[in-house]
Structure formats: structure tokens, C-alpha cells
């Protein structure tokens, strides 16, 4: 297979398989969670908890200042990923093609900035998994796997855009394949949290709201 065939496969069948697995898998996961149900609250509640649930989805994003280094690094790469994925101009073309919705991208130097910061932040979070005693005892293969599949698109995307590493066609194919690997990993790893964190926050927020407790 030559490099253009690899690129066309990545943009064609590869993307199809990855999309199918990701959407299928995430839908399945959500159904599996909901299927376990939640017992009715029989105590006299202080509030219905519904609005507290929804509010919690956003409120819990306010960082706790105590552990600023890890939280800063984590926010940098989460925000960075969102910015890069949705506002890099070639990516806006992709989303326009898929969703039919178009929004303006941001200048390349802004995306570059976020990419470099995100790569640095991710390296910090990886090292802390070895250095921080809590993270060291918690970290398993699945955590490192999740890190790798998140890191690869960042690095390969940067390399492709800046014409580093292999020739552009191959580098672009590798980048797209790394994104497809990430897509496939979403439903089968802790990366599911990208979707289910809203559910977790809602449940906690609503039970807190029912009891009138601060969260």
C-alpha cells in the first residue's frame, strides 16, 4: 500500500469503522449505565434536585485551588484539545462536512500555541503518574494506554502541519489513524468519562440538592 492509498483508507473506511465503533460503543455504555436504575428517594427532600443536578455539571468544573499544579496541567490539555479539535481550520472543514454546521476557525499560531502547551501539560500529567504516590498506586495499564491514545493525535497533528517526521501524506495518514485509534478507545476505556462525567455530576448534584447540601 502506498502513502496515498493509506491516506485514502484512513479518510474513508478507517474513519467509517472508527465512527461506527465509537458511536455504537458510547451509546451502549450510556444504556448500560441507565439500565441499572436509581432508587426513588423516599425521605422528605429539601429540593427536587433536578436543577441542582444540571447545575453541578458546570459547577464541578470550578477547580479546587489546593492542587493547582495537576489541575492546571489537566485543564491546559483539556481546554487545549477542545480548542485544537474544534478551531483548527482544517478541522472546521471536517465538521462542516459531517454536521453541515460551520464556524470560523482560529489562526494557526493560536492553535500552535495550544498544541505546544497541551503537549507539555500532558507530559507533566504522565510524569506525575510515576512521581506522585497516590497516582502511582492508582495507575494501571489502562491509564497509560489512555494517555498514549490521547497524546498521539496531538503530536502527529503538530508534526504533520509543520512537515516534520515523515513525508506529509504519510504523516497526515498517521495523524488521522491516531485519531481513529482514539475514537475506538473512547468506549472501551476510562475515556468514556468524556460523556459520562455529565451523568456522574448530575447524579451527585441532584442527590446533594435533595438533601440541601453544598457541593
Amino acid at each position, binding site marked *: 500500500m502506498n502513502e496515498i492509498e493509506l491516506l485514502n483508507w484512513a479518510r474513508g473506511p478507517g474513519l467509517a469503522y472508527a465512527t461506527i465503533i465509537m458511536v455504537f460503543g458510547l451509546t451502549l455504555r450510556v444504556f448500560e449505565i441507565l439500565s441499572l436504575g436509581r432508587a426513588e428517594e423516599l425521605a422528605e427532600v429539601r429540593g427536587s434536585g433536578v436543577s441542582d443536578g444540571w447545575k453541578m455539571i458546570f459547577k464541578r468544573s470550578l477547580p479546587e485551588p489546593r492542587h493547582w499544579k495537576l489541575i492546571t496541567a489537566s485543564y491546559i490539555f483539556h481546554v487545549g484539545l477542545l480548542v485544537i479539535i474544534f478551531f483548527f481550520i482544517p478541522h472546521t472543514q471536517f465538521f462542516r462536512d459531517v454536521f453541515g454546521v460551520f464556524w470560523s476557525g482560529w489562526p494557526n499560531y493560536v492553535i500552535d500555541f495550544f498544541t505546544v502547551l497541551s503537549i507539555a501539560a500532558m507530559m507533566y500529567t504522565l510524569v506525575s503518574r510515576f512521581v506522585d504516590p497516590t497516582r502511582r498506586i492508582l495507575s494501571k495499564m489502562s491509564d497509560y494506554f489512555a494517555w498514549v491514545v490521547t497524546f498521539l493525535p496531538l503530536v502527529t497533528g503538530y508534526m504533520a502541519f509543520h512537515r516534520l517526521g515523515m513525508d506529509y501524506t504519510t504523516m497526515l495518514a498517521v495523524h488521522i489513524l491516531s485519531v481513529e485509534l482514539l475514537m475506538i478507545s473512547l468506549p472501551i476505556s476510562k475515556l468514556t468519562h468524556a460523556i459520562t462525567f455529565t451523568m456522574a455530576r448530575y447524579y*451527585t448534584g441532584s*442527590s446533594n440538592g435533595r*438533601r440541601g447540601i453544598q457541593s
Partner: protein
Amino acid sequence: MSTSFEQGINTLKQVIDAPIAAYFSSCTNCGLCSRACIFYTETENPKYTPIRRVEPMRRIWEQEFTLVGKAKKALGLSKEVTEQDLKDCVELAFESCTTCGRCSMVCPVGNDIVYMIRRMREGLTAAGLAPKSLQDAAVRTMEKGSVMGFPMKTLEAMVKAAEKETGIEINIDKPDVDYLLLLSSAEVMQFNEIIASLAQIFKEAGVSWTFSSIAHEAGNPGMHMGASEIEAQMINRIVQAAEELNIKNVISPECGHAYMAIRWEGPNVIGRPYPFKVYHIIEVLDKLREQGKLKTTGCELERITFHDPCQAARRGGVNQPQRNLLNMVSSNFIEMKDSQACNWCCGGGGGVNTIEKAEPLMKKVFNRKRNQIEELDVTTVVTMCATCRNTLEEGIENNNMNVQVLGLTELVANHLLKEKKS
């Protein structure tokens, strides 16, 4: 014997619900929960990281309730939970956790970790692994009528003494009154001045109340063990008393876990809503204050601070009433730097102070509370839970601190403006 390893696994399957599934799906092993747990911060031992306390339950969730997990198990990529796993979990779920709930506040993805730990305990107890001290306490509570094992006669004697001291008649088993009062064992055995205090406060406020001879104990070892069925037995006793005496308001006393048990868990474990309301005693006093029925005189001039009991305040929702009352009787009330829902656990709750093995650890984690008190330069700490009171007093003594501990009801009673002649 119906408890067994198989029952333990079975129970864990029963307690896993949609919230728990969402929590396990979302945990990224970030490790931030450990920073909120005194058992980690004061020992720097990462084995106490909160989310680790529920690892066996996580494996069961993954292997039993997700297709991916089932596949992993079939491929040998995921190990089944063993009896040893459950045994190893006892130290983490009982001996080094007060279920204070601080972990649930800091989890970035919103996991209610203490909710999960409570259910992990359910499985461990069904496996026959509940700490002996809690098992014994449960037996005493149901057979003798109180957690510490004293009979009703003991309480009757306390009541008589209080009647003599105050000159106020105190009811037992009186129907159709405003409030049914429960007490925790610690209050009866160690802080029984509360009986006289309440008699006076209620007299001035003009409210009627009674004890029940079949249900005077507020403490609930069933909840500590996570044995919902036994917890229900204890709750049902109280419900029976309230229903028989036709009382519409039940008071949970100065005890943290009692409030959690009767106010929040109770109806859910007995399977029906109550025909009455439940209040923490401090909520009742604050309501009386609001209605102008609680008048005080004089003010504490010394620097005073407040320790929020985890189950009543952070997890129970009683945060403001104690502050209203304190501001009434103190002109120098200073909040701890981390206060209200962010306050730190004293280290004694959740059954930990009954487990002998946990004593050295309890001593160690008290450092957090000690630091909180010392940085304020106060000589009085007020609280509204008897277990916290005991733990605080013990810790203060161990650390040679010059601090006294007061119960809030007692403090308010000391400043009570007595208008009615006894």
C-alpha cells in the same frame, strides 16, 4: 449463618445502581480524592486513597454489568473478586474511613465516592466481614435498646435526676405531644446534662415533648456496618413509637450518623416515607429562635470556633442553624479556615472510634483538626455531635492542648433567659 463470601458478592451486585455505574465509568484515576481525605493527608500513605476503597465493587460492576467487562473477563483480562480481596477491603472501608464525604466534594468528574463506600460496606457485611465492634453494637442496640447496652432503666434514672435539677416534668411515652426526642448513647452516658438543658429550653419555648421507652436510641450501628436490613429494624422501632404515640415531629439529637440514618437513609431502608418529620435538634432550636421562642441573655466573650460534624453538616445539610445559634450566644465566633461543608473530619465517626485496631490511626489523623484549632488561637470548640465531642476531647488531651469542648445545646441552655417560673 446467612453471611458468606457468595452473599457478599451477591449484595454488591444488588447495590450497584446507575449513579455508581456512572461514577466508575467516569473515574480517571486522577488521585485528587486522596488530597481531601485525612487518612491520606495525615499519613501520606497512598493506600488510603478514597477510590481504592471500592475497587472490588468496581470489578464487579465492570464484569457483571458491561459488555466490555464481560468480554474482558472471558478473555482473562479481568480477574474475579476473591475472598481475600474482600478481606483486604475491610481495612480500607471500615478501619480507615469515617465516611466523612470530603472526597465526594473534590472529585473532578463528580463522583460521590462516600456513597460508593457506604455500599461497599453493605457487601462486606453480607460477606460476614463487618468489624466485630459494630456487630456487637448492633446486637446490643436491638437486644438491650441502646448502642452502649444500657437498659431503659438507666435513661429513666437520668430523667429523674434532670427533673430534680430543673423542677420540670419530663415525659416518657406521652402521646400527642409536639416532639419525640431521641438520644445517642454517648449523650446519655457522658453528656447527659443535655436532658436538663432541653427540658429548660422547651419549657421556655412552650413546646411539648417526650421520650419513648421502646425507641430512645438514635444511634444506628446497622448504618455504620452498611447492613440495611438491620438498620431498618432500628429505624422501624422509632417509626413504631412515633406512630403509636401519634407524634408528627421526631428529633435526632447531637449525633452525626444518627441524623444521617433517621433523616435520610431511614425511609429508603424501610421502604416507605415517614408519617412524620425529622429534625436535628439544632434545627429545632434554630426554628424556635426564629419564632422568637428561644431567648438568650449574655454572650460568650472568648474566641469560640465550631466543628461541623460530617454526617450532620456536610452530608446532612445542617450548615446554617448552628451558626445562627452561635451568633446569638457568642460575640467572638470565629470560623475555622475550612468551614461548613469544607470542614475536616475529627476522625472518629463512621464507626472508626469503636474499632480498637484503628486507634493509632485515629490519633494520627487528628492532627488535621489540631492544626485547624491551633491556627485560630481559640480556647473553646463547640460542636453538635457526641462522637465528635469525645474524639475532640481525646485528641485535645493527647496533644496537650488548652482547649475545652462544648455541646451547642448545652451552650445555648447556659444562656437561656428563663422567664417562666418553674
